[in-house]
């Protein structure tokens, strides 16, 4: 039976598309499952309805890459089994066969796979601060998506806050789109940007673009501040402003700024639940403070028939995702005894990008003092409406040292998002309280369904039969 099953790729972003392309070149016909309505992933997300904007206006400096990728995918369509708007919400345990549970058009299907390439991407990493759930507060990624896919902005007078390359890029894109950018509030100290000098040697284009965005913002009179810590979102039912502290040469200053929307984020976090359900072994990544599926240079996991690629296997950006998608496909072909073009060059290319990411990580550091100052009344888990105080109390009164125990006793991470939004924060809070490193408190065990599914799907189970 199983030799007749096709390989399955989950995700049709840069990694998934390049993986599919390489499999097709080797004569395979993979199934490509994508939660999105159109291929391209989050980074090269496409509008649902063509709005007449050019690639240049939609994707800016990345227009050529976006166009190449979209065209590559369209060329693949006759040779793949492409299923958009399909949520993979469960993978059967390794002992129970290679089955995916998917939800598509409201119906439940089970799909078998010979091999699986997980290209599940990433979401914004968010940290709570007072008022972060106020309407008008968005993640950086969501504010960019609004612009790319829907051609709208999150507000007219927008403040951008956080850490990561996306901070300056999205602020610049908003300015170009005609929104008023009130400020860019970088949580990293200005001194961290010295690392960009060493990055300039390896990746002059990235640094030049970054400088270009920063310079244009400054020329337009946008306020740029470093060493920022947010104190509170102003306004009750809608964002009216932000109060924040910032480090100055001597001491600190508290400032407020008026705005009608706030976009913030702290780089990205990988979507790893499916790899977890597949039974892949995980390791802790100290740079990104997150547990990742173990992988070799090609994307082989601890499970011989499961491969990982793209940001879901470790945050490295879209260029690395394209390369790692190809690499995972190359490994799959080699492991199943099929001929594949030499991939050594790809390994080298990926390693070069990873080195650049390390430097970027130092230029846009994680605010590791965050939880020393987050006030008790701040919402920690928005699904279950748990405050930081309740989290702290649960940790202290239950002598908790492990993240799943914190979930069981406090409900943090038990809600609709299953910890995808709050687990980074909960992990930092717990490890801070225990005085240990982030890795030592463990990781939330993934449970099906990885995203909510309608109760009513149960009535429409369709087992997929392939001949």
């Amino acid at each position: 039976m199983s030799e007749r099953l096709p390989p399955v790729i989950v995700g049709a972003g840069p990694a998934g598309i390049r993986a599919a392309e390489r499999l097709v070149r080797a004569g395979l016909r993979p199934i490509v499952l994508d939660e999105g309505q159109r291929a391209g992933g989050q980074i090269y997300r496409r509008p649902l309805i063509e709005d007449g904007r050019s690639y240049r206006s939609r994707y800016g400096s990345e227009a050529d890459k976006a166009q190449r990728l979209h065209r590559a995918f369209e060329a693949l369509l006759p040779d793949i089994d492409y299923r958009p708007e399909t949520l993979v919400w469960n993978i059967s345990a390794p002992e129970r066969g290679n089955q995916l549970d998917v939800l598509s058009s409201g119906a439940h299907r089970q799909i078998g796979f010979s091999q699986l390439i997980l290209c599940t991407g990433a979401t914004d990493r968010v940290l709570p601060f007072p008022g972060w759930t106020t309407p008008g507060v968005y993640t950086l990624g969501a504010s960019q998506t609004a612009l790319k896919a829907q051609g709208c902005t999150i507000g007219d007078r927008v403040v951008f806050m956080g850490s990561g390359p996306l901070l300056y890029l999205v602020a610049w894109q908003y300015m170009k789109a005609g929104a008023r950018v009130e400020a860019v509030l970088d949580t990293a100290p200005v001194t961290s940007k010295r690392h960009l000098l060493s990055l300039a040697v390896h990746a002059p284009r990235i640094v030049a673009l970054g400088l270009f965005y920063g310079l244009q913002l400054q020329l337009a009179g946008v306020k740029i501040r470093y060493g920022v810590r947010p104190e509170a979102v102003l306004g009750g039912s809608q964002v009216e402003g932000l109060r924040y502290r910032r480090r100055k040469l001597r001491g600190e200053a508290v400032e407020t700024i008026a705005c009608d929307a706030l976009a913030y984020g702290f780089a990205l976090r990988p979507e790893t639940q499916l790899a977890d359900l597949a039974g892949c072994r995980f390791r802790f990544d100290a740079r990104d403070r997150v547990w990742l599926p173990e992988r070799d240079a090609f994307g082989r996991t601890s499970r011989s028939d499961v491969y990982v690629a793209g940001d879901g296997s470790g945050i490295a950006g879209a260029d690395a995702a394209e390369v790692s998608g190809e690499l995972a496909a190359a490994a799959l072909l080699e492991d199943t005894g099929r001929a594949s073009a030499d991939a050594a060059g790809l390994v080298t290319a990926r390693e070069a990008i990873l080195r650049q990411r390390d430097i970027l990580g130092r230029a846009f550091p994680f605010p590791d003092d965050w939880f020393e100052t987050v006030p008790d009344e701040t919402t920690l888990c928005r699904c279950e409406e748990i405050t930081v105080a309740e989290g702290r109390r649960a940790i202290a009164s239950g002598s908790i040292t492990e993240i799943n125990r914190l979930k069981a006793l406090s409900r943090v991470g038990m809600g609709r998002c299953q910890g995808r939004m709050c687990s980074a924060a909960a992990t930092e809070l717990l490890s801070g309280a225990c005085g240990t490193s982030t890795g030592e408190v463990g990781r939330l065990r993934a449970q099906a369904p990885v995203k909510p599914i309608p109760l009513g799907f149960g009535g429409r189970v369709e087992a997929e039969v392939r001949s």
Partner: protein
Amino acid sequence: MSRRISVDVAIIGGGLVGSSAALAMRKAGLSVALVDKGYCGAQASGVNYGGVRRQGRSPEQLPLSQRAHRIWPQLKAMIGIDAEYVRSGHLKLARTEKDFAKLEAYAETVRDYGLGLEIVGGSALAERFPWLSAKAVGASLCPDDGHANPRLVAPAFARAAERAGVTVLEQTAVREVTTTGNGFAILAGDGIEIRCRQLVNSAGAWSDRFAAHFGEVVPLTRIYPSMVVTEPLPLRLPVSMGEQGGSFYGRQVARGNYVMGGGRGLPLGDPDYSRPSVTAASSVMQRAIALFPHLADAQVIRFWSGTEAEMPDGNPVIGPSETTSGLFHAFGFCGAGFQTAPAVGEVLSELVTDGCTTTPIQAFSIGRFRKVAVETAASL
């Protein structure tokens, strides 16, 4: 790390049985060590449905169950939290005349135990439970049964026991148990040695290994619940529900989530771990919509499973060992131990202090499996 502990009683397994026993024994003046290989209340005590139900139990369990029934309202005073315990009522539906007859027969059988069962049939059903949209022939209501949050109860018992002076050792697996001249020596965790006069085996699905170590082979099997939880929804389901002859059960928690179960999960390669079964979850979801049509558009946000222990006759093992003086067993609650466990803790406390208990537990003796074990051994 080397550590020596000397106590009156050591308890292996910090589930609801072990942790409530620890608290009761400490209150009786004993020194106690409570040892768990993981976290207290993280196995069957924490992953069960949360039904605090007497209805449906076999008559031999009812004295114990009634004793527990008197403990549950006192949780706040005993352990500091009420653990979301509510006497919502437990409603058992019958879909056929035959099932309804079974409900009537059960009510007759347990009439003298004081459950206060209310049999409702035919058109009275809709009058009595206007929120009930499912078709049913009849139902049996136990008005004072209810439900509680299983994630909270056992950990709170363990913490209360710790505050009362019990030595609670979590993340501490028992590696070796030996009898000494006047009790037991236990090697656990990283170089911990516990000496005790008396020993309680309340290790849940892992209890059979300890029992076998003392020459008491029991036919314990593992079962895995398969649970489905919806997003929070407006409060509408006032009771905990079950079905005669069906495998659906469900309740709505204070936060609004519907917590529903039925069927069984599946063990992983390491049988200490399990996953919910998609087949079981699907049938629970279908049944939920038949019972509660307003849930058709609700979202399911999580599944869960866990590891529980089952005995072939549906009754637990509670009482003294028949091979080893000073050893007591309490395990194998067949997925229904949550309600009775706090009473089992008190019973164990009486057994170690007085050697006997006021609650009848003869039906739960480990000796009832001796014959089975001998026959099994012979047939091998």
